[in-house]
């Protein structure tokens, strides 16, 4: 009797929770899980221009993907792109946030200046930086010219183009992450700093013992956003390089788009999408289950 009553109560609680989750679950199902399942299924089919009726080919798409040198180049590029953009933009945004938090005069101006790249759409940024990187009369080349250095062809040289992209993305992203750090900093109680000051703790120790650990939840959040962004941000490639020269700036998502809407190979595009989803899931899992435990939440 007692058991049954408890179970009924538990069920009621559960049903209530599910009811609360229902709206977002519906959206998740319709707009995320259903397409993911669709991509997963299509990735097992050959569906390209050569096969009017899609035919089941098992894992052949994945096999030919493994043999595709462009795919490996694109994955490699994306890893370097992530390594280049994630830690740098996080570090920079932390520094910017601490500066914007401390600064007394023109506080609004400083924050706006740091934040504005976030507001500009990626396509516009692509156009602006296309000009900045233009050889001969672009901004960077003009600047280098004053020192008598002949600027290179940033976007046209395979070894340089990725650096050029990384710098641009760090510039765009740092301001956005600064916003989160700024909020995080203002949540840290002033008393902690006061007592540290009374004890005469040096500044860098204050940072490592108080500021940094208390900002860890923000850092986790920001690093997930930064990492997923490094796979999601590809708009600029349309404007600036089309993935070139020689795929040196091509990224996974851009390659998926090319495969789907320029090669019209939907089976392969679905297989690539599946790989990307798995990759992102693994990364998110590592971050959540790996770092989450070591973070101090208040």
């Amino acid at each position, binding site marked *: 009797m007692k058991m049954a009553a408890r179970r009924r109560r538990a069920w009621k609680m559960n049903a*209530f929770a599910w*009811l*609360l989750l*229902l*709206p977002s679950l*519906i959206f998740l199902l319709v707009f995320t899980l259903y397409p993911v399942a669709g991509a997963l299924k299509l990735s097992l089919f050959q569906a*390209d*221009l*050569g*096969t*009017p009726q899609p035919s089941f080919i098992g894992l052949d798409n994945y096999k030919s993907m493994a043999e595709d040198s*462009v795919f490996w180049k694109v994955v490699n590029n994306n890893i370097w792109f992530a390594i280049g953009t994630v830690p740098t933009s996080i570090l920079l945004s932390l520094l910017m946030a601490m500066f914007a938090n401390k600064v007394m005069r023109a506080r609004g101006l400083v924050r706006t200046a740091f934040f504005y790249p976030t507001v500009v759409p990626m396509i516009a940024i692509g156009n602006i930086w*296309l000009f900045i990187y*233009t*050889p*001969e*009369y672009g901004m960077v080349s003009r600047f280098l010219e004053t020192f008598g250095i002949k600027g*290179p*062809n940033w*976007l*046209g*040289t*395979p070894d340089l183009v990725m650096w050029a992209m990384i710098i641009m993305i760090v510039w765009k992203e740092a301001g956005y992450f600064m916003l989160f750090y700024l909020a995080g900093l203002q949540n840290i109680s002033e008393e902690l700093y006061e007592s540290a000051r009374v004890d005469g703790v040096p500044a860098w120790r204050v940072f490592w013992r108080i500021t940094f650990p208390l900002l860890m939840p923000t850092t986790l959040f920001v690093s997930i956003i930064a990492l997923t962004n490094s796979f999601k941000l590809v708009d600029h490639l349309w404007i600036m*390089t*089309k993935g*070139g*020269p*020689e*795929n040196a700036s091509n990224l996974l998502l851009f390659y998926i788009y*090319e495969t789907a*809407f*320029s*090669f*019209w*190979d939907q089976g392969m595009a679905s297989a690539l999408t599946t790989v990307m989803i798995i990759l992102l899931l693994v990364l998110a899992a590592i971050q959540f289950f790996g770092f989450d435990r070591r973070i101090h939440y208040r």
Partner: protein
Amino acid sequence: MRSMMKALIVICACAMFVVGCSGNGGAKPSESNAGSNGTATQTPAKETDKPAGEKVELSFYYPVAVGGPITEVIENMAKDFMAENPDITVKPVYTGSYADTMVKAQAAIQGKTPPDLAVLLSTELFTLLDMDAIEPLDELIAVDGGDEYLKDFYPAFLANGQTDGKTWSIPFQRSTIVLFYNKEMFKAAGLDPEKAPATWEELADYAKKLTKDGQWGLEIPSTGFLYWMFQTFALQSGDNIMTQDGKKVFFDTPENVQSMQFWRDLAAVHKAMPEGAIEWGTVPSDFIEGKTAMMYHTTGNLTNVKNNAKFDFGVAMLPKNKQYGTPTGGGNFYMFKGISEAKKQAAWKFIKFMTESERIAQWSIDTGYVAPRISAYETDKMKSYVQEFPAALVARDQLQYASAELSTHNNGKVSKIFSDAIQSVLTGSSDSATALKKAQEEADKALAPFNK
């Protein structure tokens, strides 16, 4: 207690939202059915075959690929057409770039609501055929004079629309590649400003002479449409790089290796062109800014250069190797499969209207595209325009040496393979013979399913 209340309110709100959504969705069809008499323009009833005498409605996708108020021009042309044909309604839909238009058309085809008409790249022919999306136009052409009708179009422009002995598209906004040069820089370098380089040797020689600090002799874009630029050299040295049926490509012939080497040497040996990939879009601004004395670019830029260059410039045919040559480019009219007979007739009427000599001449003057019809150049409009601006004639004169643009089955993949190979040579990471051989092998693989 308060949190409980909040939760309840949230649930209520969500429930209302969901109900509201489904209510809307349910109401829509009946609403549109009821209103279809009054608001026919908003809900195209595609499936219904209209009885004779009723209005035919055409949806028409078009891209914009050059500067200027193109949408307005197209809308006005459609209005003129409707004034002439009161029983036909044309709905022009601006669909972004060529690539966007292709994606939208493909999405519409998969959704079983294809547009009736679209302007798409002439090179999309095989892709559209493989999608089983388009209708041949031969029967419609036959009624209007057949070969007589087609004869008025330049063969180089028709080439990309024909395969298997059928005509699948009608040329509309077309272009070729020409050489632009800065006459003042020619004078400064001691060259005759009225004489553009006519051969490869002269091109390399002039380019070297024109190169000095802060000024390049020549720029050939190499980020977009590389295969197109390459075709100029290939066609000047030998045959085209693919077959008319789009099943085979010839990337690694000795002539093409030599062509590739010549392009590479302009930067690597002659030092007359910037190293690395040169951005497609900045080449015209480099020319206008006086950063390069010569450029290879599409005729589509003629109006832009004419309006913005503050110096005297010349336009010339591309220099020859064994012969003159250039690929054509640009967009054609396609008619989609699965539309009713009445719509077919109406769509054909519209295509004919849009490509009438007078109209296409005006379109050419407005946009800088090359008019695809011979008779367009015999109109008074065009005659007075070219008298004032003879450079507009160069592209037409070059047409006798022009050939089809690279277009094959699996076209996106094949042209990407080729473009990557060209870029690897231009950036110095591979030599011509190796890169083209690799491209040939990969392209053969991409074309294998179509050669069974």
